[in-house]
């Protein structure tokens, strides 16, 4: 029987964060993970994260994973991979499958950070090969370099469905549509806008009627649903697809906690069966802690903070630090956590329709219903201004806790202010130098540089571009509107790639002057 101060199950964002905090306070910590790679979901996240600078905003998920691993290793944490915890027995005994056998471990404290598993929905043909979870698609693409299919339909307009749809496009798949039974897009508007301008149609108030095919998926039929989620007759639409991705939520993988005898509750707000725990992640059994999705579905940033709080608390539980230090450190983290839980997508707003921004501006209903902001809705937001010469246009119209753009501008012409959820505004008194740092810094890819007086009769639009191959300067093609439809002819006048942009390329296209506020994406001439 091997013995540790703290055994952590799950080397994802919360588990690693907890391990770092605990080990830095002198604890002997081991982390088990059943996967061959650590990092949990982080290593599948190739997009830049939202948030504040202190909390790794604009850093891509997998990079955060690498940073955490390095920190953990420096702190002396033992991370054991391909190690499947098969049970949490009496007296905090953990049995782990490692290699060709099982090993018994005990610890004075145990932290369960096993994350979540994907939900499924049933429809005719849902068991056909080709119907997969969006997370599975992400694993295939981003961990194993395998395209899940050629033509894909995505069900679910939450952030997972939106982000994975974009990644499917990046991988070279065709996304024939994004479907959700809800009448409005569930995830961040900026994520939706990113795929809408690539031409992915949104079918809100729609759901899947059936997956077609005998041995595997060859097509899908969707139909509109009414307020009671009943199909509207005659509204069926068919698509030829080989893959159907389901992004319909996650369920905490809390079985170990239930096995250990922790008090559990069924809490739909937290995603299902979760342990009853306090604000520090302590469960009903002294010495057993939880952090991350297993204690309630959120996202990686809050999982990391939750992990830190639980790790600090475990250190206090075993006397490595005193109560005062624990409370002070946890308080700092809680403040950060509260910061992340602000804005339109805060847990308290789940399922509610927020009609006005914190600034009192009516939100774009087109964005919620179709995935993109309508041309006539754009001008009312503080990120949109007009003047001669280059200037940024920030199509960031929902209050989300994110502010890297504010610090990205060397001239400080972008203002968010104290409140991290405020919409970014342009300080028109400062001249933009057109460096494009703000464009590359925006995790939502919602910042554009406009030069409305670029040439006589023409404007230049600089947009973030994360597709390969990169267009070439001088190349001719089309400008696409926010809805992904061709609005004009366009010419690539500049392609900028820089280390500081972190793989977000800046594409500048020349479009007719009246298209300056309409053209938001570029497509090469066929």
């Amino acid at each position, binding site marked *: 029987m091997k013995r540790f101060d703290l055994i952590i199950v799950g080397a994802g964002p919360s588990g690693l964060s907890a391990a770092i905090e605990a080990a830095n306070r002198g604890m002997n910590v081991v982390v088990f993970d059943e996967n061959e790679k650590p990092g949990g979901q982080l290593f599948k996240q190739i997009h830049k994260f939202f948030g504040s600078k202190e909390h790794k905003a604009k850093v891509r998920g997998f990079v955060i994973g690498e940073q955490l691993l390095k920190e953990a290793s420096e702190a002396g944490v033992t991370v054991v991979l391909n190690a499947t915890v098969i*049970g949490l*027995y*009496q007296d905090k*005994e953990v*049995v782990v499958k490692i290699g060709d056998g*099982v090993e*018994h471990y005990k610890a004075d404290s145990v932290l369960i950070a096993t994350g979540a598993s994907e939900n499924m929905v049933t429809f005719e043909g849902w068991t056909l090969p080709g119907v997969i979870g969006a997370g599975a698609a992400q694993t295939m693409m981003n961990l194993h370099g395998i395209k899940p299919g050629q033509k894909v339909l995505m069900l679910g307009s939450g952030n997972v469905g939106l982000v994975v749809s974009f990644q499917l496009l990046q991988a070279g798949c065709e996304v024939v549509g994004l479907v959700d039974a809800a009448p409005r897009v569930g995830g961040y508007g900026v994520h939706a806008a990113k795929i809408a301008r690539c031409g992915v149609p949104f079918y809100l108030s729609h759901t899947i009627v059936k997956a077609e095919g005998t041995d595997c998926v060859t097509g899908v039929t969707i139909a509109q649903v009414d307020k009671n989620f009943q199909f509207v007759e005659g509204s069926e639409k068919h698509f030829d697809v080989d893959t159907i991705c389901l992004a319909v939520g996650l369920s905490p993988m809390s079985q170990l906690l239930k096995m250990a*005898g922790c008090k559990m509750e069924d809490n739909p707000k937290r995603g299902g069966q979760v342990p009853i725990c306090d604000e520090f992640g302590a469960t009903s059994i002294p010495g057993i802690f939880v952090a991350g999705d297993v204690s309630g579905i959120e996202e990686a940033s809050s999982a990391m903070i939750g992990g830190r709080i639980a790790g600090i608390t475990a250190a206090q539980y075993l006397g490595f630090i005193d109560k005062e230090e624990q409370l002070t450190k946890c308080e700092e983290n809680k403040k950060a956590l509260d910061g992340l839980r602000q804005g339109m997508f805060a847990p308290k707003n789940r399922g509610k329709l927020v009609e006005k921004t914190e600034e009192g501006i009516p939100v774009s209903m087109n964005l919620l219903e179709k995935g993109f902001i309508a041309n006539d809705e754009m001008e009312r937001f503080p990120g949109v201004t007009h003047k001669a010469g280059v200037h940024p246009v920030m199509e960031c119209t929902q209050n989300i806790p994110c502010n890297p753009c504010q610090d990205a501008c060397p001239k400080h012409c972008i203002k968010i202010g104290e409140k991290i959820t405020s919409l970014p505004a342009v300080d028109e008194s400062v001249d933009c130098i057109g460096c494009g740092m703000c464009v590359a810094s925006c995790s939502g890819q919602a910042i554009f540089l406009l030069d409305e007086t670029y040439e006589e009769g023409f404007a230049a639009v600089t947009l973030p571009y994360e597709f390969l191959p990169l267009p070439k300067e001088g190349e001719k093609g089309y400008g696409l509107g926010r809805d992904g439809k061709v609005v004009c002819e366009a010419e690539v006048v500049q392609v900028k790639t820089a280390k500081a942009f972190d793989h977000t390329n800046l594409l500048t296209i020349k479009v007719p002057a009246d298209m300056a506020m309409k053209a938001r994406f570029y497509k090469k001439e066929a």
Partner: protein
Amino acid sequence: MGNTADVIIIGGGIIGCATAYYLAKKNVSVIVLEKDKSIGNGGSSRNGGGVRQSGRDPRELPLAMYAVEHMWPTLSEELGVDVEYHKEGNLRLGKTKKHLEILQGLTDKAQACGLKVNMIDANEVKRINPYLSDEVIGASWCPTDGHANPLTATLGFYKAARALGVRFYTGEDVIAIKKIKGIANTVVTKKNVYTGGKIILASGYASRKIAATVGIDVPMQNVLIEALVTEAEPKMFNQMLGTADADFYGHQTNHGSFVFGGASGYEEMNKDDGTQPTSSITAPCICRGIMKYIPKLADAKIVRTWAGYEDVSADGIPVISKIDEVPGLILACGFTGHGFGIAPVVGKLLSELGTDQQTTLDLKEFRYDRFKAVI
């Protein structure tokens, strides 16, 4: 409606459900009170599914033989639920001379009671079950033994009883039986009071505490057992298996999965925290035991382990008895881990006791007042 019936049964396990079913068939009104949220969540769902006659105490053997002959073969049809009964024999395996001696002793006893059981050699064992290892040098063989599915059998009795109008209440925790003017006809739960012409107490080890409320005690003990379940495997054999060494017991189910019980040796000293805990060392131990006998299962995946309790009586057979001092009360407990195979006949016998009929089989060996001091 209300809380009154001809018979109140305490305990919604297979004994309670079977009794309710046979009573209902006699047009007797029945209420079953079950403490748990689920029907049959005690030993009824936590046993190896053996329908054995061999290895039984001679006093209990007539019940097992009756059930095998008259009840199990038609039970699926009777209940409208497939109880997956197989009457394809029981092999009790031996690997050493000492094992064979133990088996011989058991065989002699059973033969004396008129049961067809005999010793067979390694070749014969292999002929019956070619998957067994060469370490097996002999076995006792009872061709009329078998196994069934405890889960569907228990729920089958429940379903059939319910369909006949038996009222089941789950989550109903009985705290006392009360005598009214000398007759036990009242059952008090945490929230309600039920009255009936007869009360049948069949709640496993919990019967002890409830019987105590009318001054009756049956010496018994709550003993932990553990088992494991494999994924579905291609059909290999249909016999029930056991060993002279008691390393493991079990069978392959219709579904294809194997259910094997076994022990680490520390079961009687388990640290019960009320959650029916499995121990971290028992399943590996059972696995090692099984692989010595059935090497082919080495790569079968274990998908589940579970633990349960046996209500082990002081002399190894149950109490199935009216209580003289408590008129109206009938007690059925202490089944000692082999109640499942005789559950149908016990249900039938209890339904006869509950209606003051002559019982089909003699129950004098199962009286509650048989426990005496050793000297």
